[in-house]
């Protein structure tokens, strides 16, 4: 029986979000909060492994109280338990402080039921670093396996896992001892519509909610803004290249103009074999 914990985050949907042009900050109200899309794949993979090997899937998140909604979404996908750590002391955390707080939560979850495997998403769409997963692994001193696109085997009895890690030009097959941490690629699975019983269970489900005081052995100087070595010094709107010339005339004339632009750069086409 495996205990798999997925780390998940509630994020503003950056695809629809509007920026306040005066302050260059996000207008959070303009975007719905969603389960980080990459983390849905992490939960789905945990659920599939549970179906394959038996066990329990927990999810953990650090965030403000409304993050309960993201946990419920994970219950819909098939997670069994959800843990929210929420406290003002966590606010303003960069990746180093985030991985510290989550590690403390994972240690506590591990006391309730020892953890065999932790699964993170590839990245969050707001933080967008992919650093939190490997950070947790380092702190727990377990092997991090990033860019996982397929889980070949998890063998608790013999204490190992085998996965495919995506590389720029292929993949590698890597074996690790358990426990270990995966950061998974989107292509690892597809998240289907949730079965009705899960949806019903999610509606009623109340996650475990912990504050800093509920965690053990916490060094408060390592939390939140205080525990974050990096600070955002300045934000500005991204520079876009200036709009160029709009071509006019008939489509044929416009096409001719493009052709002459191409042919001015003939050296680019020199090695080309011409067909037709």
């Amino acid at each position: 029986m495996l205990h798999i914990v997925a780390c998940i985050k509630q994020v503003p949907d950056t695809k629809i979000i509007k920026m306040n042009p005066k302050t260059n900050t996000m207008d959070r109200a303009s975007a719905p909060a969603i389960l980080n899309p990459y983390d849905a794949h992490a939960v789905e993979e945990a659920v599939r492994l549970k179906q394959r090997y038996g066990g329990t899937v927990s999810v953990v998140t650090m965030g403000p109280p409304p993050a309960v909604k993201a946990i419920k979404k994970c219950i819909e996908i098939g997670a069994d338990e959800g843990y929210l750590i929420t406290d003002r002391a966590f606010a303003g955390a960069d990746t180093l402080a985030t991985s510290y707080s989550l590690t403390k939560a994972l240690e506590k979850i591990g006391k309730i039921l020892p953890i065999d495997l932790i699964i993170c998403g590839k990245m969050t769409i707001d933080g967008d670093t992919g650093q939190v997963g490997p950070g947790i692994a380092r702190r727990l001193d377990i092997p991090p396996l990033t860019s996982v696109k397929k889980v070949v085997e998890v063998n608790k009895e013999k204490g190992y896992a085998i996965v495919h890690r995506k590389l720029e030009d292929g993949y590698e097959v890597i074996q690790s001892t358990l426990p270990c941490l995966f950061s998974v690629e989107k292509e690892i699975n597809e998240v289907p519509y949730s079965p009705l019983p899960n949806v019903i269970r999610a509606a009623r489900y109340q996650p475990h909610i912990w504050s800093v005081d509920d965690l053990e052995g916490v060094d408060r100087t390592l939390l939140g803004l205080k525990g974050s070595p990096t600070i955002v010094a300045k934000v500005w709107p991204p520079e876009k290249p200036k709009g160029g010339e709009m071509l006019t005339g008939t489509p044929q004339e416009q096409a001719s103009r493009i052709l002459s632009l191409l042919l001015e750069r003939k050296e680019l086409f020199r090695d080309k074999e011409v067909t037709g």
Partner: protein
Amino acid sequence: MSNLEDYKGVWVFIEQKEGKIAHVSLELLGAGRKLADKRGVPLAGILIGHQVKPLADEVFAYGADIVYLYDAPIFRHYRTETFMRAVIHCVETYKPEIFLYGATSTGKDLASAVATDLATGLTADTTMLDVDADTGLLEASRPAFGGNIMATILCKKDRPQMATVRPKVMKALEPQKGRTGTLIEETLSLGEEDIRTKVLEIVRDTEKKVRIDEADIIVAGGKGLGSKEGFQLIHQFAEVLGASVGASRDAVEAGWIDHHHQVGQTGVTVTPKIYFAIGISGAIQHIVGMHNSGLIIAINKDPNAAIFQSCHYGIVGDAFEIVPMLIEGFREALGKAEEVQYGGKV
């Protein structure tokens, strides 16, 4: 908190695979050189692998003053556990103030582990770098919140200041043949029995590799092509031009083309000499991946499409009308040019 005075010099992690240095590492040597010169400190490369010593010359040629070398069989394949230990050992011994990694899967994996262990700051996916000459404070800027803003990140109290940097945004220097520097060979007592991970096999893509980041010409298509069949038009045009095929994320998500072709924030950053954006609306997340291209030509049927704010030449029109004309015209023109050329030779 680190004693800042103890940390000197700019470092670049030299990523290599099977005896070939990743291009991004050469780009970072170029960027690192500028930072080091501004600060008046040396630039170093840290090279880890098995039988990689000969690569040190290349690292010097591209601008490094020092190469730290860890060469042993245990480093044959990249593994977080082994590489991390070498890097941490080196940082603790020689204490750099700035440390750059390519934002590749390997670079990000390594940098995240190292930063956590050293409890220092790490900025991800940087696209702009500068340093304050006096304080040595690194200004690492990157797109944030899905590319909606740019942010400058500082790490004031801890060293080294670390960043992963996107491939293709910095420029490598012209290599200077024969340029040398100091090679420092280090060893680590690390046995296979200390390591919990094993690479069982490496499988390289056998199908023709798509490396759109290296292409001179890219024809990119978006959701505007309407369907997988419609997207064939992009392939046809690319083929006559000898170009690589790029795509927007929406085209990739529609399943018309593989993710390797995606240009943009969550895809590849490209800087070809010519970039065609066809049926692409010009979302900021796409623009950040291609706006440094030499010549950007956009074709879109919507005169208000954002892409027209980000191109050198724009055509308002239907791709299915314009592109076939370009294909025909180009074939003809090139055919004629070749005829003349061959004719002239006789």
